[in-house]
Each structure stands twice: as structure tokens, then as C-alpha cells.
């Protein structure tokens, strides 16, 4: 559990981060979202002490981060940034093994961990281990950057706009990968972004920052349905609100018995996908399948009822 306790950062009398208090549960993704200048990156960088807090403290599993020397603290906290920051003069394997090497892991353990992570990120170890970062595509570099941050099984993974430099298609894939890997490893992640879409897609909890203050911290559904301030409502977007809400609800929540024409959608697709399918193909219901078998349908009326009910 990560406890952020009244943490403040002042630059020349201006509060970049103003008494932010929040708790991050182990094994969850918390997305900090805000405009530029909202203090979200400063907040993140105070957790691994790349910035020293002016006042307040952060506790990881009950222990204050101020109790450890900064560089030793950082070895326990994964850090992935926009533009990956890989070492261009080291191979992929050496990049991923950087922190385990700092922690004096035995060589064979590091090698095994590197191969394990490459496999997890769908990169064939035999093919990629000995390449240099310049020989990888942007998406591959970014995956190696995240793998490097996860290599020593850190207590916490901090990510600062990790997908900012990727094109939309690769970004969506990277987000899905992160979700899958986080579930598989049970990692605790704090991620900073300016993209509300990304926050809703990835976050178990979303924290909205504005002018150095934490204005709302809750589940994505809460942020969408009950925005605490106009700023949060603005970030969500009036027009996108119902669609964002629907994107959080899987089809299996609304599935009912019955037939429907056309191609089936998987049960873990969202209501937004179903709505799009209904609108695009002029159907009033779409079939739902799980593991290749049709298990029922979701109707257009049910989707509409669900959206109205929440708003």
C-alpha cells in the first residue's frame, strides 16, 4: 500500500503540488490525470524522490521514503518514462537487467528474468536479447522500457506518460499489454497522463489533478458519473460522457437470452463496442459469444436504458 500524506512541493513560493493526500492499494493501477502544469508529474517524481517534497511524506508499506537514500529507494521503484530512455550503448538484455545488476543478482537469475520479461511482452528472447535499442521499432523500444522498469519486481511502478510517443494503434496495444501484464504480475502502478481516455481505460482508480490540487480520486465510473468539479466534468467531456461510461461496462453484465442477427461480439467487449456495432449495421441487438459459443444477446434498448440509468 502506498500512502501519500499531505505532500507539497513549492517552487519560488508557487505551490506546484498542494497538500495531496491519497492511498494506492497494492495490486491496482492508479492513473493521475491532469492538464500540463497541474503538478501531476511533480507528484509522481516526489514518490521516488527525483523531486524532494517541500513538506509531507510518502509511505510505502508503512515505511517513509525519507528513511532510505534516494538512489537506493529508486532501485525498489520501477520508473518508465515517455521516450523510453533506454541506454543506446547497451543491448536489450543489458537494458532490462540494469536494476537487477545494481542489486547484485546472480548472472543466471538476471538472464532468466530478462527472457521471462521479453516473453511476457511478446518479444522472442533469442531474437531480441542481443539487439541494440536503435534496432527496434518505437513500440518495441517502449516495451523494453517497461520491461526494464519491472525487472527487479519492484514494490511500485511509476510511469510518466509512458505511451505518449506512440502512434494511436500501437498505443492501444501497449495499454492492453500493460493491463494484461499488471494482472499477471499483480503489480502496483501509478501512471501519469493527460489523456482521460487512457485514464479510464487503464485505471482501477483515477486521480484528477488541477492547479497542484487533487480534485477528485475515485473509480472511473465515479469520475464520469459524478464529477466533483467543472474541471473534472470538462476533462471527461460532456459529449463523451455516456460513451465513456458504456466503455467501462462489459457485455456480460447485460447479456440476456435470445437470438440476434450478424457477427457476435466477445463477452468481455464493452457496451460501447456493442452500441457502435448496433448503430453501424442497423441492428437492434448483437449476439454475444464466449470462447466461440453464442451465450445470448445484448439489445440496443438495454444499452440505452443502462446509459440513462447512470446519468
Amino acid at each position, binding site marked *: 500500500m502506498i500512502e501519500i500524506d499531505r505532500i507539497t512541493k513549492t517552487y519560488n513560493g508557487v505551490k506546484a503540488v498542494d497538500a495531496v493526500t491519497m492511498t494506492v492499494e497494492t495490486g491496482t493501477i492508479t492513473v493521475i490525470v491532469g492538464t500540463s502544469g497541474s503538478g501531476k508529474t511533480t507528484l509522481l517524481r516526489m514518490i*521516488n524522490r*527525483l523531486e524532494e517534497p517541500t513538506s509531507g511524506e510518502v509511505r510505502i508499506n508503512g515505511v517513509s521514503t525519507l528513511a532510505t537514500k534516494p*538512489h*537506493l*529507494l*529508486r*532501485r*525498489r521503484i520501477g*520508473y518508465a*518514462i*515517455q*521516450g*523510453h*530512455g*533506454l*541506454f*543506446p*550503448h547497451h543491448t536489450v538484455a543489458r537494458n532490462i537487467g*540494469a*536494476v537487477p545488476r*545494481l542489486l547484485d543478482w546472480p548472472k543466471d537469475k538476471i538472464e532468466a528474468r530478462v527472457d521471462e520479461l521479453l516473453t511476457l511482452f511478446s518479444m522472442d528472447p533469442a531474437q531480441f536479447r542481443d539487439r*541494440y535499442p*536503435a*534496432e*527496434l*521499432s518505437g513500440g518495441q523500444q517502449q516495451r523494453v*522500457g517497461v520491461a*526494464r*522498469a519491472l525487472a527487479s519486481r519492484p514494490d511500485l511502478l*511509476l510511469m510518466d506518460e509512458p505511451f505518449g510517443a506512440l502512434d494511436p494503434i500501437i498505443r492501444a496495444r501497449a495499454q492492453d499489454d500493460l493491463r494484461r501484464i499488471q494482472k499477471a504480475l499483480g503489480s502496483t502502478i501509478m501512471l501519469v497522463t493527460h489523456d482521460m481516455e487512457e485514464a479510464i481505460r487503464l485505471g482501477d482508480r483515477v486521480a484528477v489533478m488541477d492547479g497542484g490540487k487533487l480534485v477528485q480520486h475515485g473509480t472511473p465510473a465515479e469520475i464520469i458519473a459524478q464529477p466533483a468539479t467543472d474541471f473534472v466534468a470538462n476533462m471527461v467531456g460532456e459529449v463523451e460522457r455516456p460513451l465513456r461510461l458504456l466503455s467501462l461496462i462489459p457485455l456480460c453484465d447485460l447479456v440476456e437470452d435470445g437470438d440476434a442477427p450478424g457477427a457476435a461480439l466477445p463477452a468481455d467487449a464493452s457496451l460501447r463496442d456493442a452500441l457502435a456495432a448496433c448503430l453501424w449495421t442497423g441492428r437492434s441487438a448483437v449476439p454475444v459469444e464466449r470462447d466461440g459459443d453464442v451465450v445470448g444477446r445484448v439489445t440496443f434498448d438495454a444499452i440505452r436504458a443502462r446509459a440513462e440509468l447512470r446519468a
Partner: protein
Amino acid sequence: MRIGVGTILRPALVLLLLALVLRPDWFAPVFRPLAPEGAPAIYARSSLLSLSLSHLGLVAAATAAATLVAVTLAILVTRPAGEAFRPLSRTVTNMGQTFPPVAVLALAVPALGFGAGPTLVALFLYGLLPIFENATIALSTLPPATMEAARGMGLNRWQRLVQVELPLAFPVILTGIRLSVVIALGTATIGSTVAARTLGEVIIAGLLTSNTAYVLQGGIIVGLFAVLIYDALVQLEARLARHTGGRRTA
């Protein structure tokens, strides 16, 4: 592999240089027409091999010392604490470059006596600037994301310097060393005016006796050394820059 001019020219020049240094007598017919009546065409007062080794040794020692001092200075002025000394360091190294080597030789002789000493000082001072400038630029223009990641993953200052900053800056520093070496190879010949043992001895002997054969012989050997060493360092830089400079794209 690319087959360029270098593939053929390089071994040919190496062979020519070896022959000129090890078997100077072979070239007697070539230089004979340039020598005055009755004078020898080939310099024989001391072995060209020993002069070459002494010449290269001086250059290597001076460049090594200049590299050590210039890179240390560059590391210091690129730390936050040393930033204030950057203009001062630039002025000092610039002065080293502005001072004519002959003047340095003349001034150093009373203090250090005749021989290799004054030459070493002159070459050292002359070599500082290119290495310092390149090292300072290389160390202050490292990729910011890489530096941020290095700090964020828990490398301490020393580890960042040794494992990340210096390896990434090395190809550019090497360019500075290459410039210094080439300048020093030429400048070292002047050292023979204060009795340092260099290939300049051959050239000066030629000038004193109006023997163009000697002048050419010394000049060609020094020139070939400069060209070949320059070329070797360029090759080394290209090899190193392949990974660190990101010149290769995916």
C-alpha cells in the same frame, strides 16, 4: 563489405610508410636528383625507426596527458557544482591553443632545458582545447530521457558518469583526441629545434644543408603517419558511434 578507395589505398600507404622507415636505402634512386652534388640522398645520422618511435612516443605521451586533463576538466565543469568554472576553463584551454608552439618551446627551454621536456609541454598545451571542447559538448548534450531514466532507476552519480555519460560521450571525445593527435604529429617536428628526438631532425638537417631530399623524406614520413593515424581513429569512431550516436535507424 563496401569496397572503396580506402580498401586498396590504406594497405598501400602502410607498406610505403614501413618501407620508408625500415628500408630508407631503397628510395635512394628516387631522392638522389633532389640532393645537392656530393651530399647523401638518404638521412643516415640516426635510424629513422628510432626517430619515428621517439616522435610517436612524444605525441602519445602529450596527447594522453592532454586527454586526462581536458576530460577531467570537462567532467568537472559539466557537474552542477562546477558550472561556474566553465567560462574560465574555456579561456585557459583557448590560451593553450592561441600560444604559438614555437613560443612555448622558447619559453620552456630556460625552465626545462633542452630535450623532450619543452616539446611535451607545447604539445600538451596545444592539444587541450579540441579535447576539452568536444568533451564538454558531448557531456552536456546527452539524451535527456536516458539521463532521467538512469537517475530514476537508482544509479548514483559515479555510476551514471562511468556507466552512461562517459560511454555515450566517448565517440565525440575521440573526435577531439583525433584532432589533437594530428596537430601534435605535425607540431612535434618543431621540437627538434630544441633537441627533442623527432622526425623534425631529418627536415631541419635538410633545411640547414639545403638538402631537399632530407626535407622531403622527413615530411613524407610525418605526413603518412598523420594520414594513417587520422584514418584509423575515424574508423574507430564510426564503429563506436554505431550504437551510442543512434546513427543506425531501425
